[in-house]
């Protein structure tokens, strides 16, 4: 049984955040690899300072696979359905492993489903991975106000999930509209960024609610998963 038949034809929630090959100029693609390299270095440095860095590797790998699979679940928005990106949830659960996990997830999506691309891997990883790290910091704030409280877990889950997607969406649309080799004028570019961002607000809310519900579920069933 292959995975190809389960892969989404078009992942609505992240449709413009997986920028394909050939769309961006090479300088932007190389810049993306540089920023992704820096973020990976930062994450691996933080991971290597952990008490037993190798202990987290199988956990992060299996959860990377799990997140990839979970992102294929159809979430109904009648009359259609969407797939969520879950970078905020990934940040909340994996902590500093989130960026390598996203890099690997995008690599798999690029080579298995041609979703995203090899030249744009760095840009996509930066656009999705850096907000995941920020979501981790946002979610960690709940430790200061009481991590046993489910309402607060839900609230910070919502902020991490919705915020993670919002940051990714704005970054992706900005890169797409300003660097695509097209003859657009400044006003059209600005209008496009606003329109694309506004069009994604319902998905951001949905992503936030979904992340909040999953975070509360995990706190009830397996709280150590939320320790980052």
């Amino acid at each position, binding site marked *: 049984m292959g995975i190809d038949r389960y892969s989404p034809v078009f992942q609505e929630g992240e449709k413009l955040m997986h920028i394909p090959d050939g769309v961006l100029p090479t300088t932007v693609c190389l810049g993306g690899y540089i920023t992704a390299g820096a973020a990976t270095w930062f994450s691996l440095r933080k991971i290597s300072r952990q008490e037993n860095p190798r202990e987290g590797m199988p956990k992060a790998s299996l959860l990377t696979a799990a997140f990839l699979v979970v992102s294929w679940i159809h979430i109904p928005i009648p009359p259609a359905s969407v797939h969520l990106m879950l970078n905020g949830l990934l940040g909340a659960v994996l902590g500093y492993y989130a960026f390598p996990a996203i890099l690997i997830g995008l690599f*798999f999506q690029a080579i298995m489903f041609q*979703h995203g691309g*090899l030249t744009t891997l760095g840009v996509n990883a930066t656009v999705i991975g850096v907000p995941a790290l920020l979501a981790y910091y946002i979610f960690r704030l709940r430790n200061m106000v009481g991590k046993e409280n489910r309402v607060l877990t839900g609230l910070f889950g919502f902020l991490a999930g919705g915020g993670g997607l919002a940051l990714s969406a704005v970054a992706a649309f900005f890169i797409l509209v300003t660097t695509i080799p097209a*003859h657009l004028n400044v006003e059209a570019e600005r209008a496009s960024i606003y329109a694309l961002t506004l069009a994604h607000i319902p998905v951001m809310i949905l992503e936030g609610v979904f992340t909040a*519900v999953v975070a509360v579920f995990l706190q009830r069933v397996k709280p150590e998963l939320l320790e980052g």
Partner: protein
Amino acid sequence: MKLQLDRYAYLETPLHAWDPRYKLVGFMTLIFAFSFVENLQLLPFMVAVSGILYAVSHLPLSFLLARLRLPGFFLLMMGVLLPFLSGSTVLFHLGPLSVKQEGCLDLLLISVKFVCILTMGIILFGTSPFLTNVKAMRALGLPSILADMILFTYRYLYDINDNLRTMQTAMRLRGFQGHKLKNLFTLASLAGTILVRSYEQSDRVYRAMTLRGYGQAGENRGGQDNEFKAYSRDLFGLVLLMVAAAFVAGQVLIH
């Protein structure tokens, strides 16, 4: 377990026999050279190089076409927007909308680059087993933790996907209908259960690995680097692709 992408990795062609390290460097250089192109005159050259390499790889055409279908949706969206929004030279009118020359040329450039780069990626990962490619990346300097994570993710992706299918079947058998928004909470529980199961499985995997010496001093991890042996023909192939890449880059710089 067989990744769909490397189902033709057993074929015997010069590309299949090429040292994966050289192949990785050569193809990635060519891919970035293609991405560098902004001159329409170079597009036929790119198409020719991609076509020749695909023919040499002996991969079936249906294999390529099946993979073009998914990302084609992005192109479709660009195709709908760019000709109307980009540029100022009007070619013709479609009702209230006008089709612009610059937008059509932008779309042509993006589409050809996209298809050529995608073809290169499919040849690169379709002509070697996936594990060999990861070992080649490791040999080229990919951090060990990333290589390990790629292999683990690859190993368990299918298992977890089967888990999800089983749970979804069980939900349907109990009358679950996933097309209502109020089912969001049930779907979130499904996602949470997948995460919890994977977490618990990872704990068992880690313990099994530790019992087999994972993370111990003297663990044999360096053997992979010596697995590949390059011959002069491997170097020749690399030089060939580098020349093609340099030609493309040079043409772009001249223009």
